[in-house]
């Protein structure tokens, strides 16, 4: 069973509001991924970190999305100005890195009204 912790489980925001969600990876996993799963079950990779450093991110995250994985603190994903199209399940996954498997948390369900 995955031991990735995500909070909050549900988040409701108005358009233009900030939305912030957190992730605690499995103990000992240095690599963290953020994905977005929409209502059509389409997954979109957003960003990943190894320890505190960004490995890769898509263009979307460079604009309204920001993320960090500070040392000794939960990782976080923040949407600066939420839009209706951001409504989705945001999934955090962690991994030992390299060819190792990714283990997902339960997700944060964001609804933007």
């Amino acid at each position, binding site marked *: 069973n995955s031991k990735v912790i995500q909070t909050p489980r549900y988040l409701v925001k108005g358009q233009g509001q900030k939305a912030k969600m957190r992730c605690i990876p499995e103990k000992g996993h240095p690599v963290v991924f953020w994905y977005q799963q929409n209502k*059509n079950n*389409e*997954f979109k990779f957003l960003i*990943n970190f190894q320890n505190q450093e960004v490995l890769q991110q898509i263009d979307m995250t460079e604009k309204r999305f920001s993320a960090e994985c500070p040392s000794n603190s939960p990782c976080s994903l923040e949407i600066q100005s939420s839009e209706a199209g951001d409504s989705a399940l945001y*999934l955090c996954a962690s991994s030992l890195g390299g*060819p190792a498997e*990714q283990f*997902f948390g339960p*997700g944060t369900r964001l609804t933007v009204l």
Partner: protein
Amino acid sequence: QQQVRQSPQSLTVWEGETAILNCSYEDSTFNYFPWYQQFPGEGPALLISIRSVSDKKEDGRFTIFFNKREKKLSLHITDSQPGDSATYFCAASAVGSSGNKLIFGIGTLLSVKP
């Protein structure tokens, strides 16, 4: 464009039957293929995975068959149980590049009738 395709979109089998879920991909650099099981309201759970150097991987009632030449793979669930009813996602990654991000298909919704 969809790099990982899954079929069928939904599948219904009777308890005890074998469910066969199909997956295909386009990118020949993909070398790692996990299958995830997701129940409503939960995150995806890793079920079984295979690397491109193998053509078969078995774990209990779950078996992956992999055809590298045709870029196809399938997940066989034998002796299906009602508790297996869930959405199954095939994913792919080119391990060693691009930070190992996963590319997912849109899933197969499996329903197992008792």
